[in-house]
């Protein structure tokens, strides 16, 4: 019994300290994450966007080299990093451009091109947008990779707080029915009940979103590992070759990749020299046709000097884990109802954070433990009328 209660004290210690350290940042993440669930809708509402021409289904795409050329014509002195099939609109292509091929693509500009005519649509500057500011606060607090990794650490503490919270939930509920909410009691009791109830009901969702968020903070590192691992392996015989000066046709490269993977669709192309390809290859990333495989990618490397397929392999497990963790974090994989549920669960998480913070503050102020205070209020309410 003594060892059980001492281990319980250790769990309570973990719950207290992991929560204290991460709560402020978790509040920031929950609050900035809320509008991000609806980022597309918010952008649509706040910003005008040139619509791509509507065409009947099955209309062939424009020649991709022409689409890239017309995109680049609208962005003097920029080079193309990626050509992306717009996941939200089959009628437009997105060209990601930067001032040179070896800059960090997170600051790249997106140019939208009509997928069937190849005409330039627009190149909005997103950096001033509300959703962009929320996203930056949410992912790295404008502090780059260190900020990202720091938030990942806070996410790990959040997960520790959830797990230890489950352990300390048991003694807290020993004399109570599930879902007990003692409404007539002082706020500290009510908020403890609310904290316990909402916390225990959301355990799996909070862990899922918390942990996939942590995995997302490692994205840059995962990509680096892939670059020096599988990608380097696939292109090892090209390592000493000078960069390609006259790359072959992009349209032909995509067609070659399509031939190698007839059951897949192109998701994006990484141009030679960009972070997702080698200096001498087009990296054509194909995705599957089912809801699950559509999240997964398979790169086909096309030699940009000859236009021939060099290699195509499934991505290693750590990149697959990253790709699957993304929808689980964003909640964007089950239509608008799922987004709304995501938002409600996010708000309930904020309630858990705030009630937890309040319980800790009250305990600090009075210098006694929550348990002792509960015992005191319990004694006070042992009034025959109230407990009848």
């Amino acid at each position, binding site marked *: 019994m003594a060892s059980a209660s001492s281990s319980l004290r250790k769990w309570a210690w973990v719950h207290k300290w992991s929560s204290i350290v991460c709560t402020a940042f978790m509040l920031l993440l929950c609050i900035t994450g809320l509008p991000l669930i609806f980022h597309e809708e918010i952008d649509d509402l706040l910003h005008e966007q040139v619509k791509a021409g509507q065409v009947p289904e099955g209309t062939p795409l424009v020649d991709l080299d022409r689409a890239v050329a017309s995109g680049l014509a609208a962005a003097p002195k920029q080079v193309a990093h990626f050509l992306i099939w717009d996941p939200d609109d089959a009628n437009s292509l997105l060209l990601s451009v930067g001032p040179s091929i070896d800059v960090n693509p997170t600051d790249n500009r997106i140019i939208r091109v009509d997928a069937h005519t190849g005409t330039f649509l627009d190149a909005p500057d997103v950096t001033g947008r509300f959703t962009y500011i929320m996203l930056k606060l949410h992912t790295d607090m404008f502090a780059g990779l260190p900020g990202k990794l720091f938030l990942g650490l806070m996410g790990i503490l959040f997960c520790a707080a959830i797990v230890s919270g489950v352990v300390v939930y048991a003694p807290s509920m020993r004399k109570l029915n599930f879902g*007990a909410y003692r409404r007539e009691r002082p706020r500290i009791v009510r908020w403890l009940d609310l904290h316990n109830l909402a916390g225990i009901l959301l355990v799996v969702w909070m862990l899922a979103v918390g942990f996939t968020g942590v995995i997302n903070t490692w994205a840059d590192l995962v990509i680096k590992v892939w670059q020096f691992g599988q990608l380097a392996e696939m292109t090892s015989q090209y390592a000493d070759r000078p960069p390609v000066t006259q790359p072959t046709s992009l349209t032909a490269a995509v067609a070659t990749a399509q031939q190698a993977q007839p059951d897949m669709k192109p998701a994006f192309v990484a141009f030679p020299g960009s972070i997702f390809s080698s200096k001498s290859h087009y990296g054509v990333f194909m995705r599957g046709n089912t809801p699950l495989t559509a999240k997964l990618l398979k790169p086909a490397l096309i030699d940009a000097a000859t236009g021939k397929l060099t290699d195509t392999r499934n991505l290693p497990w750590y990149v697959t884990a990253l790709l699957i963790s993304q929808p689980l974090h964003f909640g964007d994989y089950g239509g608008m109802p799922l987004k709304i549920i995501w938002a409600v669960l996010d708000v309930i998480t904020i309630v858990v954070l705030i009630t937890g913070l309040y319980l800790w503050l009250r305990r600090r102020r009075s210098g006694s433990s929550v348990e002792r205070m509960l015992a005191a209020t319990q004694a006070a309410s042992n009034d025959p009328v109230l407990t009848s």
Partner: protein
Amino acid sequence: MTSARPGVRRKTIGQIFGIPLLTALLSAIGLVSALVGDGIWDSVSWVMLLFPILLCVYCLRQAQKRVRLLIDRIAEAFSELGA
């Protein structure tokens, strides 16, 4: 109310974690199902993830009803005192 009174039998681990475990299971199904497919799979996901939200609201509303009962009883006691 009665459950909070001292001397009441302590709950077993099974009683404490029964509903939380069920909720956890449903949430896990909900998180995965929309990932696996569209259409019906999405709907399964909505229902499963709606469960903890509705259960939370239900528990809070039940508490409200119990308070109303309590207030009625106190009012009754006072009116008896007055009589």
